[in-house]
């Protein structure tokens, strides 16, 4: 396929952004639906090309497609940066994920955002985001990728703070940007360190460089850690996880697209992309695995006690991203990316379902919902399918990828395996707790200002959910016999086989643990055999810790930001500015004035004094000539 089409993959949404911003919004503001159509057409086009690209890579037996690059920056005797595309199996998979989820979310948004005053702005930013994400995936060198990395972060800021007149949304957007910035700083440091040691930004060369030892031990580890810190920020791993729950202030389709399926997956993608760096540094791999594993259980534990349905899903996302990092750190690119692939579909679906519920009841607080399964059957059905997939119930998609991760973590870091297994239990529990609280029982009224009875969402919102539900079921089958691993270049496929759950102990164990979680949730929230309040009473202190999210927000905001930075460091800087900087400038001015005032005494207006000075001057010249020749 002609390589110019590959450039169109991310250029089409970019053009959509430009058209909406400069043509539709100023001139066609009375026809807001045009913005939606433009975006959907552009992303639809990208999706079609991505499918062709996938088949082309498959036909090329898993090697990257040749794409000639464009020279971008050429500084004499030094820096030369090219713009190019790298289309290998990893890219092809990510392209499918991003375009499919984005397309479904755009279609859904037409219903969800209907009537909103910022409709055009929303679709413009959505197009820009999709363009940046696709560019990030396609980029073939780290600088090009970093540009899109920042673009994705920018769009996240713009979309989280979409309803910017709400202070909570504006603060959440700022928080997201600043926290990911911390990670990006490490990422940039890693890129520069890599450049200074190897002279290249090119990703395709990373494998050779790491193998031939062009980058040596400690430098390699530090570069890998730097790159990983960028991933920690973007993928909301511990300790930079605090921004993602707050990011739920944005519109729900935004959460579905950005904070479930794509942008947060960019961190995982980055680690996969630069995997040669990690492969050759044991410390970096271990770091990735440990942070991933810890984050998984950490976030899942907080998700157990959340009452806002989007917060539950946010912590679930953080936890699942931890799983992906664990997979990357212990098993390799194929395992982590396969989980990313599956997770994108069912997590996006879960968010869209939450949005649908919000559309009907006007609230996100699960304590005010209930009984919705009777009035919103489609939403209920797709939500349950997605939850089962997330919990890892055979034979849905999540089972296959989660099983792989558990297997590889058992093989390399057994402690993490146990943590991961506990997380499976927690995941199943909190998802079904959410389901039973939201859809089970009787309707508890919804938001105080809601309009009476909830009803099913319009087809424009339901159809994308159904499509994603189908994908949530079947996407796992790609690796049933190991074709995905083979496609990603990781050895011959050693897939477990469709009925492996019956023959191998590990898949069976994970399935049982998941079902236990579902049963416990049922017991506490549906059949009410156990009282949730009594259990909360028994585990009082633990519940408090979890409900306060381990006090991390308070730690960051109060201790770090307010006390040390604002009152301490920044106040000190302000003193410095006032006294030293301003003092110097004013001092110079005052000194000049004083000097002038002193010097003007010479100007007496009497020529005889001036004549005397002339005489002194002549005398001085004469004496110097006489004495010094």
């Amino acid at each position: 396929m002609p390589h110019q089409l590959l450039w169109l993959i991310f250029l089409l949404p970019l053009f959509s952004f430009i058209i909406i911003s400069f043509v539709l919004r100023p001139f066609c503001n009375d026809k807001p639906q045009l913005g939606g159509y433009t975006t959907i057409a552009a992303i639809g086009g990208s999706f079609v090309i991505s499918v062709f690209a996938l088949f082309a890579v498959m036909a090329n037996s898993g090697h990257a497609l040749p794409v000639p690059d464009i020279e971008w920056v050429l500084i004499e005797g030094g820096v030369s940066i090219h713009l190019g595309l790298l289309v290998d199996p990893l890219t092809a998979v990510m392209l499918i994920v991003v375009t499919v989820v984005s397309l479904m979310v755009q279609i859904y948004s037409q219903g969800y955002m209907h009537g909103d005053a910022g409709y055009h702005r929303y679709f413009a930013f959505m197009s820009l985001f999709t363009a940046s994400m696709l560019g990030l995936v396609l980029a073939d060198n780290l600088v090009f990728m970093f540009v899109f990395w920042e673009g994705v972060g920018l769009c996240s800021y713009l979309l989280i703070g979409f309803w910017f007149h709400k202070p909570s949304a504006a603060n959440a957007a700022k928080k997201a940007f600043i926290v990911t910035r911390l990670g990006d700083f490490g990422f940039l440091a890693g890129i520069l360190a890599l450049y200074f040691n190897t002279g290249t930004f090119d990703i395709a060369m990373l494998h050779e460089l790491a193998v031939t030892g062009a980058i040596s031990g400690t430098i390699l580890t530090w570069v890998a850690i730097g790159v990983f810190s960028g991933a920690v920020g973007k993928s909301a791993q511990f300790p930079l996880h605090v921004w993602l729950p707050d990011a739920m202030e944005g519109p729900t389709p935004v959460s579905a697209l950005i904070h479930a399926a794509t942008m947060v997956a960019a961190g995982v993608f980055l680690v996969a992309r630069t995997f040669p760096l990690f492969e050759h540094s044991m410390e970096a791999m271990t770091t990735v695995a440990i942070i991933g594993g810890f984050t998984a259980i950490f976030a899942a534990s907080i998700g157990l006690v959340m009452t806002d349905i989007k917060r539950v899903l946010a912590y679930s996302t953080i936890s699942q991203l931890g799983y992906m990092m664990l997979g990357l750190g212990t098993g390799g690119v194929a395992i982590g990316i396969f989980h990313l692939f599956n997770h994108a579909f069912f997590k996006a679906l879960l968010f869209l379902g939450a949005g649908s519920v919000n559309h009907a009841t006007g609230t996100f607080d699960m304590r005010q919902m209930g009984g919705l399964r009777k009035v919103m059957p489609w939403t209920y059905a797709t939500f349950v399918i997605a939850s089962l997939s997330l919990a890892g119930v055979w034979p849905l998609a999540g089972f296959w990828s989660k099983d792989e991760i558990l297997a590889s973590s058992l093989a390399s870091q057994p402690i993490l395996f146990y943590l991961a297994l506990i997380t499976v239990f927690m995941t199943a529990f909190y998802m079904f707790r959410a389901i039973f609280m939201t859809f089970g029982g009787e309707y508890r009224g919804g938001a105080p200002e809601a309009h009476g009875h909830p009803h099913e969402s319009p087809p424009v919102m339901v159809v994308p959910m159904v499509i994603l539900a189908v994908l949530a079921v079947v996407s796992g089958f790609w690796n049933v016999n190991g074709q995905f691993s083979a496609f990603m270049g990781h050895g011959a496929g050693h897939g477990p086989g469709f009925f492996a759950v019956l023959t191998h102990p590990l898949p069976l164990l994970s399935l049982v643990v998941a079902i236990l979680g579902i049963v416990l949730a049922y017991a506490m929230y549906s059949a009410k055999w156990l009282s949730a309040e009594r259990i909360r009473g028994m585990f009082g202190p633990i519940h408090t810790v979890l409900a306060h999210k381990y006090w991390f927000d308070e730690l960051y905001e109060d201790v770090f930001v307010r006390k040390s930075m604002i009152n301490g460091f920044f106040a000190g800087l302000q003193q410095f500015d006032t006294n030293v900087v301003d003092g110097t400038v004013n001092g110079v001015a005052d000194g000049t004035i004083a000097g002038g005032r002193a010097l003007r005494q010479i100007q007496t207006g009497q020529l005889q004094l001036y004549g005397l000075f002339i005489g002194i001057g002549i005398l001085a010249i004469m004496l110097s000539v006489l004495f010094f020749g």
Partner: protein
Amino acid sequence: MLVGLEHYLILSTVLFAIGLYGALSKRNAIIILMSIEIMLVAVSIALVAFSRYIVPLALTGQVFVIFIMVVAAAEAAVGLAIIIAIYRGYETIDATKINLMKW
């Protein structure tokens, strides 16, 4: 004893020094002008002495002195005109009182 070049030069220097002292330290503007004339005369003597003792046949120094006299006359005329104009305006010819250019 024979009078040589140095004698004339030293005379010229002494006259010049006296003129300089008068020009810089006197209050009366007319005295200042007279001192300036003394300085000019002193220089003329030095020039004629050089001309006589070093190149007696060229007479260049004397030509120079003729022009110095021209300039001295013109300058005296203008200077006195200025002094009279100031006297008309300020009723004084005390040089220390004329200080409009003071800061």
